[in-house]
Every structure is written in C-alpha cells, then in structure tokens.
C-alpha cells in the first residue's frame, strides 16, 4: 500500500537538512543545474585538462613562456617576474597541473546518478515504485497519450534545461540556497519560475 506523502515540517527538515549537509561538507551551495552543465561539458573539460596538464607539468616553462609573450607584447618596461600573491615562487609550487576546477566532473555526475537511486529507494520504501509510461490521467487530459505527450515532455524539458542555464540556477541553487541567503538574483529567479509555473498551470486548468 502506498504511504502518504510527508507533511510540510518533515519535508522542510529533509530539504534544508540536505542543503545544509552539502554546504557543511563541501563548502559550497547545492545547485543541480550546474551538475548538468558539468556533465554536458565533461568531454571538453577532459580535453582542456589534458592540455593544461601538458603545460603544467613544467611550471617553469609555462612561466618563462608567459614572460616572453608579455615582453613581446608590452615591451621591456613590463619586465617583472611572475610571482603568486602569497609570495611562493611559481617554480616552487607543488608539481600539480593547473586545474580548471577543483572538483572533478565525476562528482556532480555521481550526485545526478544518486538522485535516481534516492528516488528508487524512497519509492520502494513508501510502496510507490511503479513503472509508468505517462504522467497520469491529469497530464493525459491536458496533452493526450502517446506521441503528443512525449513531445510536450521533450519541449518542456528543453525549456527547463535552457532556462535554468540562462538563469544560472534552478530550484536548489536559486530557490533553496539562494533565497535562504537573500541573494537578489535568486529572489528574482524564484519569483519568476514559481510565477511562470503557476501561470501556465492555471492556464492549463482553465482552458484544457
């Protein structure tokens, strides 16, 4: 038998608890649309890392090359050796290649995978796991079954994917973490996507 959905307080604790755990253990705010970005860009990232790796393997050669290029571009008066702001000469830095991002793309990709696993586990625990080919009678009432419905889901997905990238965040990044910190961009984002969601849903209910 399917158990009831969680009451407000339980859900609020679970969502905020997750976001807080993320922040405390990783030092940044949770944001799912950025994981999609990393996944989609993974191939390009790997390519860039290989190139950077080849350069960074010899930090001194990199510094020398940049220095030479600067002299060429700016003239002799700009001749200043490159020094990192914490006064560690670059050639004494650990021999790691420069990295585009401290977190490998596989980590956010794992998060996305675990969203699926989490959904599966929870669905089974509450007795709600069921293979479904359509979102249900309400959706079918709006968009009919079969190909038309799938086209709507595809188009809707395009809107979600493109829109969240354009906004630089989604429900977790802007909606949860951003508004909790009173960030102006996130407040505007949350108002916008809730407003648009409500608007479209009300139109669907009214006219379809």
């Amino acid at each position, binding site marked *: 038998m399917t158990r009831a959905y969680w009451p407000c307080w339980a859900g609020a604790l679970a969502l905020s608890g997750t976001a807080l755990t993320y922040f405390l253990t990783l030092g940044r705010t949770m944001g799912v649309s950025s994981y999609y*970005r990393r996944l989609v860009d993974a191939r390009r990232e790997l390519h860039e890392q290989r190139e950077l790796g080849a350069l960074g393997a010899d930090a001194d050669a990199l510094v020398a090359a940049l220095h030479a290029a600067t002299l060429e571009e700016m003239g002799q008066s700009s001749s200043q050796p490159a020094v990192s702001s914490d006064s560690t000469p670059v050639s004494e830095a650990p021999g790691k290649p420069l990295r585009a991002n401290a977190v490998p793309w596989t980590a956010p990709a794992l998060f996305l995978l675990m969203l699926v696993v989490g959904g599966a586990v929870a669905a089974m625990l509450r007795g709600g796991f069921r293979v479904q080919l359509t979102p249900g009678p309400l959706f079918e009432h709006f968009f009919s079954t079969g190909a038309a419905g799938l086209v709507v889901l595809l188009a809707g997905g395009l809107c979600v994917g493109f829109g969240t990238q354009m906004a630089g965040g989604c429900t977790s990044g802007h909606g949860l973490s951003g508004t909790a910190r009173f960030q102006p961009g996130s407040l505007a984002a949350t108002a916008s996507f809730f407003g648009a969601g409500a608007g479209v849903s009300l139109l669907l209910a009214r006219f379809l």
Partner: protein
Amino acid sequence: MSSEALAASSARPLLRREPSSAGIHLRYGLTGLMLGAALTFIGFGSFDEVHRMFTFADLRLFFTFLGAVTLLGLAFFGIRSNSPALPRRPLHRGIIPGSTLFGIGWALTGACPAIALVQLGEGKLYALATLTGILVGTWSYGRMQGKLFRWNTGSCEGP
C-alpha cells in the same frame, strides 16, 4: 587563475580538512541520495502534486518549500559564513527570462532538473523524454552563450 581564485575554488569546508577525491565523491553521492529520497517522500515526483501546488489547490508542497528556505536561512544566518566560496548571485539579465522559461517547462513536465532524475528512479520512464529535453537544452545554451548572450550567469563558480 590567480591564487585567490584557486584558493576560493577549493575553499575548506567548515567541518573537514580538504577532502580527498574519494571524500568529495562520497559527499556528492550521499547528498544526491538524500535529495532524491526527500523529493520522493515529499511528493515532488508526482505531476499531479506539482500541478496542485502551482494552481494553489493544495499548498502542502509550497509550504514545505517555504519551510525549507526558512530553516536553511536560519542555519546560514547562524553560521554567518563570509567564506569567499559562497557566490553572490546578482540579478543579471538572464535570470528573469531564464527562470520564466524554466517555470513554463516545470509546469508542462512536472519536473525541475533534479525531479526529472528522481522520477526516473521512481519508475516513471516517461521522464526519459523530459531528461532528453533538459540535456539538449543545457547543451544548446552552452553553444549559444558565447555568441548570443554575454552575461555571467555565475555558474563559473561551479558546483
């Protein structure tokens, strides 16, 4: 990248020293599991529930979300971290049109980027259509951003 930026991109989490790669993956994986489970238990994976939220027929999901923001806000205030790793999120030109587009898609599919994956986990195979759209949309934006749009969405701060 300046050393400040490098330091910020690998800013120390409050509880742990700089984690290993395995440690980073464990944290991402665990929080992903938590979020996926939470969304299912709450009912965000259901098209009907989301539709009810958006039409104000049942405010449970909305109050859940509001409660989560409040609790998280209190927590952030309590921590009062001015760590450079926390990005400022200004209202750039892409926010309102992008979020509006996202909201339209959410109403049509019942899914946001996280929910589409959670739906798949729940056995809702139709989410594959939604996910295809999300991935193509994400990819398309990446291709267009350099040519058409010239704002910083803040996503350089990374996940």
